[in-house]
């Protein structure tokens, strides 16, 4: 057996209790399934998936707003691919596109800005979805469009910040999380110091993990060591990318263009200070203001969908009556099934049946 995995078994035996570690990054969720890591771990050491998939935590109301904008004349919605299948109250961006709506899938906000430059007679709206990893690029793009005089580009800002959500998870209860695998590339930007309050105030061990399966094993080993030694601190396994202070230039540009606001998280609710909105200086690029008077469908979610509880780590997809029946990747009901990084989509792809 691999030495690191042997270490995990030895430390887990020493810990003498069942343990739950939460990863809050969709890429970690996928890496853990794809590599078979979950099947290599001790049976009573569980990895639970928190709200780490930005598409999955986007509130229904925001999706409805994006859909309404896509239906406006002379308007192009540019978005990362995962967003287009997300069901709003009655339709999705994909269906709007099939009916002739202008919805473009882009790889980067830079592509959306190019689209605006090439279509000066259209309003191009980029859907700003993502955590601190994505936000600096969107901030740069807004600033660049201001500096270069692109007047037909705007951003519908649905960005969220991770530490506030983790704080809400540990203070809301009832979930017993014995440790956090902190997200790799969010931490590149914000730095590991951002999690200090979790370890100090809430006494939850935190380790920033990289994305290779062996990074995750290493991070799990570090969490176990903290538990065995009876301490809680913030440590970095992903030291080839992450520093305690983070990327200062990226932090500066975020602060220059955005300011904190309250945000709605699907399934979790309103979390104070966990969202970002565009500062007044850049109001001309704020789609929220430009499209403030359009009609938006009311916020109806399927009552049987338990995405919210899954995002908080208190239920798994196996507990959901819709999972793999009415709700599948081709006909998703909830957001966790839509995004390829969603917990339900990962279970569907790699572990459709309990114990499979």
């Amino acid at each position, binding site marked *: 057996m691999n030495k690191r995995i042997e270490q995990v078994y030895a430390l887990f035996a020493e810990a003498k209790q069942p343990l739950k570690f939460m990863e809050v990054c969709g890429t970690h969720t996928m890496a853990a399934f794809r590599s078979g890591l979950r099947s290599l771990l001790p049976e009573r050491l569980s990895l639970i998936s928190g709200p780490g998939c930005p598409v999955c935590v986007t509130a229904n109301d925001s999706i409805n707003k994006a859909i309404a904008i896509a239906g406006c004349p002379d308007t192009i919605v540019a978005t990362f691919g995962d967003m287009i299948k997300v069901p709003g109250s009655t339709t999705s961006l994909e269906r709007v596109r099939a009916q002739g709506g202008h919805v473009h899938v882009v790889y980067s906000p830079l592509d959306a800005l190019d689209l605006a430059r090439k279509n000066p007679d259209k309003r191009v709206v980029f859907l700003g979805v993502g955590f601190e990893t994505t936000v600096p690029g969107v901030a740069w793009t807004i600033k660049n469009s201001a500096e270069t005089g692109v007047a037909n580009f705007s951003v519908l800002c649905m960005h969220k910040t991770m530490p506030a959500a983790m704080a809400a998870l540990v203070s809301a209860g009832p979930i017993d999380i014995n440790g956090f695998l902190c997200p790799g590339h969010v931490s590149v930007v914000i730095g590991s110091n951002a999690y200090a309050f979790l370890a100090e105030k809430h006494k939850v061990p935190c380790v920033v993990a990289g994305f290779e399966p*062996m990074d995750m094993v290493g991070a799990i080993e570090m969490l176990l060591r903290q538990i065995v030694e009876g301490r809680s601190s913030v440590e970095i396994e992903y030291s080839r990318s992450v520093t305690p202070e983070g990327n200062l230039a990226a932090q500066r540009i975020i602060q220059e263009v955005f300011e904190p606001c309250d945000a709605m998280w699907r399934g979790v609710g309103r979390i104070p200070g966990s969202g970002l909105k565009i500062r007044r200086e850049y109001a001309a690029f704020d789609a929220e203001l430009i499209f403030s008077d359009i009609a938006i469908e009311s916020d109806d979610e399927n009552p049987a969908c338990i995405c919210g509880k899954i995002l908080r780590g208190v239920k798994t997809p196996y507990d959901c009556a819709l999972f793999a029946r009415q709700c599948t990747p081709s006909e998703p009901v909830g957001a966790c099934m839509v995004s390829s990084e969603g917990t339900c989509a990962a279970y569907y792809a790699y572990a459709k049946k309990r114990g499979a």
Partner: protein
Amino acid sequence: MCLAVPAKIVSIDGEKAIIDTEGIRREVVVSLIPDPKVGDHVIVHAGFAIQKWSEADVAEFNGLMDEMRSVEPGAPGHGPHE
């Protein structure tokens, strides 16, 4: 989706650079990392370089890939669980 594979800067023009990821080239913004240079290994997210890797970091990454290839899938453990 976070892609944690290093790309190499092949040319720089102002705030932008051409990077090479296993043979695929594209333009990215490099002004969010300190002092970008041709030959630097960088981590890119949605068109923006967000971090530099040293040669030692790249070597560590390659070592982890090799280590994973040596693990027999499903050896110990008990299938996916909650």
